[in-house]
């Protein structure tokens, strides 16, 4: 109730009334009061509670947490309330004395004899680490001592929170350092305090100890999360935070443990190695990987323990993910070892499901490293058939449903297809009827979750194949013999009730439309109802978003042949835009889609102007200013602006040369005003800048001399254009050249 009423200032006495409860009443009432305050803080936005009340809530909560409070339930309610109230405490955390006091009480509470209270106190520390990172310096040494003690000796739920504190600090520092952009010239609102770098000599040994606390069979349990897993994950984040500095601290642990008879030591050593492969420089890691590769391949084949094999295959995957590819100077995969690597990985795909899954994952990254190799001969070519055959065999394993094995096999197959070339394309063509048969079989079986998942995977695989074969005229020609049958299968997938299967089928149809071009018209009568269904799917907004993209594909494929379907499509798109239910991320692509439709049907867009233009106009007004917005909002606003501008661009270009161009004249002042206000706002990204200056050109091109005086009055046609003409971004420059040409023509009339 408070969540509804407080924002409307309808229950002003609530907080004072609750606070009057917290002193002398019986413990259960104090507990209930603190819980209620906690819930209120969880539900209500900080800006609707005034600072005086915030101060009083925090005082009451911190008093409840104090060790003088004898009732554990009250203490627990108090610490949980603090967790929820942290977002309210900006002012209090800026005051040294108040912050010191809160931090002292939280740290003291981590020592409570009660497990639940200790865990809740560490949860608070985790939340403080992300909300008030920049205030932590005076406390970090004490927090290290407290967390180290908990990680080493406390019960698992508490130890996990203590590890999470350091993972969370890593998240913060990775974000800050990414904003610096590596050269410290970028600007981050928060400075990096390098807590991880400073704690490194103590933090790394503590995390390495946790790696030895594995549970038996943890790899078979999807929901498992324990100290060893949390510790290794944190070690990986530390490596990403500090880079090279972690390597000398971890190597002795690996060397000491990797050959030990106890599987836990071998696994921990391998896990440590795999964890630090992202972050340090290739210069530092490649020599180590070259030394370890042979050992790892042998371990994957011969280690008697499945857990060790699982981690070994995962580590090989990480080596290929981060240290193999055309961008790297010294290859870890060479003509000498590639045969052995592939033999071992294919052999491992016959191992127990969790190991086989990681072997598929390793093959995925091995293939990915060759993706940029172009159409020339690839080192994978000699093994292509063997790899495809092995992966298809995995998908048919009885136990492929365990450990995501089937998914991993299809994903690896997709990647192998993506990196195929002229030599291996015929083998990809041969794959088409095989995958179609598989999809056909799932459609004949009774529809259930397993079949739907499989349909999703098979549609995904066909999408990748269509995209690959469609990219060259020769392979496209060979593929086209299957187009009708494939489309028939995709349409049958829409009979299932699975959003994922629909999404995958829709993506695949988009790729097919792109590959088929105007011939796609023959599928439209049947396909249209599913297109409309997709556009109506507010609930699974991803399906809706993908369908919007596919409308664009179909427009470009069919051009004016899309016209008979446009009334229905436009009606649905306009409904989508007006809906409060639909996820906001779908709205920018809908605007872009207006542009695709307009460009396809030209002056026939006339009848939609009356509906589309006011929508565009009001969205433009909303998106013109971003003052005070956070990063997410600014990013969203820019994507919205881009969508709106793409719509204008398509509409102007679509009407070009038509006798009806004058219908657009009434909208020109607003479009120019929008461009001017975007320019004045100075917060467009390069993509928006490029689209915006292009719209100026499209407007001038289509409206010509009639718009000349209007254009000359706009700031965009002068200062904005001038800036864009000297832009470093060649796409911005190219659009600006276009605008300059179109404007000079319009003005000379």
């Amino acid at each position: 109730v408070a969540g509804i009423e407080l924002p409307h200032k309808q229950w002003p006495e609530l907080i004072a009334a609750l606070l009057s409860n917290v002193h002398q009443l019986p413990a259960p009432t104090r507990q209930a009061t603190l819980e209620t305050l906690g819930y209120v803080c969880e539900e209500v936005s900080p800006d609707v509670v005034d600072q005086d009340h915030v101060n009083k809530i925090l005082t009451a909560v911190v008093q409840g947490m104090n060790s003088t409070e004898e009732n554990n339930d009250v203490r627990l309610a108090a610490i949980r309330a603090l967790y929820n109230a942290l977002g309210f405490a900006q002012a209090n955390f800026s005051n040294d004395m108040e912050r010191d006091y809160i931090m002292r009480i939280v740290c003291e509470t981590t020592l409570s004899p009660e497990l639940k209270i200790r865990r809740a106190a560490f949860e608070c520390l985790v939340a403080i680490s992300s909300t008030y990172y920049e205030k932590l310096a005076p406390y970090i040494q004490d927090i290290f001592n407290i967390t180290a003690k908990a990680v080493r000796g406390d019960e698992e739920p508490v130890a996990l929170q203590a590890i999470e504190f350091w993972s969370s600090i890593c998240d913060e520092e990775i974000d800050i350092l990414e904003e610096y952009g590596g050269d410290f010239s970028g600007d981050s609102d928060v400075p990096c305090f390098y807590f991880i770098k400073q704690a490194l000599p103590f933090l790394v040994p503590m995390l390495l100890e946790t790696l030895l606390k594995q549970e038996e069979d943890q790899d078979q349990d999807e929901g498992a999360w324990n100290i060893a897993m949390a510790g290794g994950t944190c070690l990986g984040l530390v490596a990403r935070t500090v880079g090279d500095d972690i390597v000398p601290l971890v190597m002795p642990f690996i060397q000491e443990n990797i050959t030990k008879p106890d599987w836990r030591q071998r696994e921990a050593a391998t896990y440590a190695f795999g964890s630090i492969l992202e972050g340090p420089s290739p210069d530092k890691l490649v020599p180590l990987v070259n030394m370890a590769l042979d050992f790892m391949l042998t371990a994957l084949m011969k280690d008697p323990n499945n857990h060790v094999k699982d981690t070994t295959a995962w580590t090989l995957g990480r080596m290929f993910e981060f240290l193999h590819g055309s961008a790297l100077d010294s290859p870890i995969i060479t003509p000498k070892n590639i045969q052995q690597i592939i033999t071992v990985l294919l052999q491992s795909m016959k191992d127990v499901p969790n190991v086989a899954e990681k072997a598929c994952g390793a093959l995925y990254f091995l293939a990915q490293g060759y993706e940029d190799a172009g159409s020339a001969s690839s080192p994978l070519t000699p093994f292509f058939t063997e790899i495809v055959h092995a992966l298809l065999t995995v998908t048919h394993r009885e136990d492929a449903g365990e450990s995501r094995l089937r998914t991993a096999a299809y994903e690896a197959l997709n990647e192998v297809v993506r990196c195929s070339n002229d030599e291996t394309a015929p083998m990809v063509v041969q794959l088409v009827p095989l995958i179609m048969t598989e999809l056909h079989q799932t459609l004949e079986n009774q529809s259930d979750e397993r079949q739907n998942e499989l349909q999703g995977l098979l549609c995904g695989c066909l999408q990748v194949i269509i995209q690959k074969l469609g990219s060259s005229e020769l392979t496209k020609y060979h593929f086209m013999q299957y187009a009708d049958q494939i489309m028939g299968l995709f349409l049958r997938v829409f009979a299932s009730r699975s959003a994922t299967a629909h999404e995958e089928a829709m993506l695949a149809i988009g790729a097919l439309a792109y590959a088929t071009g105007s011939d796609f018209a023959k599928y439209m009568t049947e396909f249209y109802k599913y297109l409309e269904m997709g556009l109506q799917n507010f609930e699974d907004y991803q399906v809706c978003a993908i369908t919007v993209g596919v409308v664009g594909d179909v427009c470009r494929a069919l051009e004016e042949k899309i016209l008979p379907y446009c009334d229905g499509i436009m009606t649905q798109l306009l409904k989508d835009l007006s809906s409060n239910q639909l996820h906001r991320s779908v709205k920018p692509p809908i605007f872009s889609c207006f542009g695709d439709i307009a460009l396809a049907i030209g002056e026939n867009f006339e009848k939609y102007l009356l509906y589309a233009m006011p929508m565009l106009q009001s969205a433009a007004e909303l998106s013109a200013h971003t003052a005070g917005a956070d990063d997410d909002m600014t990013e969203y606003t820019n994507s919205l602006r881009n969508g709106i501008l793409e719509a204008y661009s398509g509409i102007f270009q679509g009407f070009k040369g038509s006798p009806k161009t004058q219908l657009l004249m009434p909208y020109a002042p607003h479009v120019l005003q929008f461009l001017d206000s975007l320019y004045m706002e100075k917060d467009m990204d390069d993509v928006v800048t490029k689209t915006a200056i292009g719209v100026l050109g499209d407007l001038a091109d289509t409206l010509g001399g009639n718009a000349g005086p209007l254009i000359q009055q706009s700031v965009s046609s002068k200062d904005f254009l001038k800036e864009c003409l000297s832009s470093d971004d060649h796409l911005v420059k190219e659009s600006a050249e276009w605008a300059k040409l179109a404007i000079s023509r319009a003005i000379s009339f």
Partner: protein
Amino acid sequence: MAPHDLRRPFKRPAISDQERRREQSLLRQAQSRRDAQRHARFLASTAFSLPSE
């Protein structure tokens, strides 16, 4: 106010293949849109240059 679930992705790639498929479709669509626009503008530019030739 139940305890926070702190599980992080374990031995899983940062981006799933499904996300990659989605991203690649979006990239292809954006590229096709750019090509269509560029084509329309190119036709217009060629038309401009004709009278002056």
